[in-house]
């Protein structure tokens, strides 16, 4: 009844898995960056966009935060070819993850933007700052300080979410674990190892974000 762990067949595959982790990382970083752009535009639309733009942003958020991400990616993967847009698995998953992240980050950044005091903005304006200068010196630092913890969480969820890409044939960390599993059948060892690599990747990412948050934005975040 006792299972004995045998890592012998699995350890030579570690470099192969680590390269897969790099692809996961790539996917999460790019989707996060794209999601931030959508999120900033969305947050501004929500708060300053007037009736219709604000509504549009709200619908977007509702749609992308209330349907499973897997369903969203399936939709992109199978619906877009119908209108003549053929995407490889990687860009299809990236697009789905980006749109999804955009929904969550709109909400996160909106909360941050709403917490900027009007008087602080008035002060910036009367001191002679342009809109762009106010954004750069006052609004963004304030937002990042406030939303850093929520943003870090979102990033971790996205890193773990990249494992969905395996379903579409992207050979990232989970996909490669599947591959090794189908030739060695040492499932427990393989997925223990894979889980361990995910932990390392997310820990590295959170520590990095926490460092940036603490020293660049004075966010109150714990490092490890």
């Amino acid at each position, binding site marked *: 009844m006792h299972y004995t762990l045998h890592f012998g067949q699995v350890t030579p595959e570690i470099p192969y898995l680590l390269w897969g982790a790099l692809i996961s990382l790539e996917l999460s970083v790019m989707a996060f960056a794209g999601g931030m752009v959508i999120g900033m535009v969305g947050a501004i639309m929500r708060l300053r966009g007037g009736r219709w733009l604000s509504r549009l942003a709200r619908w977007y958020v509702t749609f992308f935060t209330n349907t499973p991400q897997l369903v969203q990616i399936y939709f992109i993967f199978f619906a877009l070819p119908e209108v003549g847009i053929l995407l490889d698995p990687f860009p299809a998953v990236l697009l789905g993850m980006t749109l999804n992240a955009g929904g969550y980050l709109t909400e996160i950044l909106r909360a941050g933007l709403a917490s900027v005091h009007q008087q602080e903005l*008035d*002060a910036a304006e*009367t001191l*002679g700052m342009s809109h762009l200068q106010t954004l750069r*010196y006052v609004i963004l630092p*304030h937002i990042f300080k406030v939303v850093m913890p929520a943003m870090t969480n979102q990033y971790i969820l996205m890193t773990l979410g990249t494992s969905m890409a395996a379903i579409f044939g992207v050979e990232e960390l989970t996909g490669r674990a599947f591959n090794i599993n189908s030739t060695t059948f040492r499932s427990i060892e393989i997925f223990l190892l894979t889980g361990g690599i995910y932990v390392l990747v997310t820990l590295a990412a959170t520590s990095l974000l926490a460092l940036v948050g603490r020293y660049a*934005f*004075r966010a109150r975040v714990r490092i490890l």
Partner: protein
Amino acid sequence: MSFLDIHDLGARYGSLRVLDGIDLSVEQGEVVSLIGPSGSGKSTLLKVITGLMKPDRGRVTLAGAAVDYSNRKSLKAARDRLAIVFQQYNLFGNMTVLRNVTVAPTTIKKRNRRQVEEKARELLDRVGLGDKLHVYPDQLSGGQQQRVAIARALCLEPEILLLDEVTSALDPERVSEVLDTIRLLAKDNIAMLIVSHEMSFVRDVSHRIAFMADGRVQEIGSPEQIFDNPQTDRTRDFVGRISRVGH
């Protein structure tokens, strides 16, 4: 002509008329205070003067030049001559005290960094915060924050300083330290337009006091006139009421 000259100024929020023909002037180096009931439009007047809100009629002249609030260059020229401090949340939370004071002169107005910093240190010394240069606003008391805000306003070397109830968000024991700072400045020959509910302070520091109600200046005169010998019933009423509650 006066340094700041306001004639028939009007402004509204939507359909709510808030300023309804303001006439007011401030001379060079003069301290003028605005008093009046809550909602009478005092803050709105300061917002219009600083260009945070557009007037819908009337004229503001600053240092001899009429300010065109829909013209960016004209507005910028006006803002170069004035500075304003609000009730609270003046400071940028992500910058140290020193940076708060120097950010506008150095990065916006492109003045010489070393000179600006020297001036900032001197001003912060004067408001009693020479030892807090590298501290962040959330590590300061409300009164200390307001003194930094005043130092920041002064670092711009304005010709007129506008103060909107700078002590009303403070604990009573913090009020006097800020008022003392302002008193010190009043001796400096800088013009000030002060909105305040601190009547004894207003009486002490002002050259003239304007009583505002319903979006108009109802009466303007020396502190003695306004407090001891008001010329209109409304002023008498307001001053009587406010001194009874012990301000």
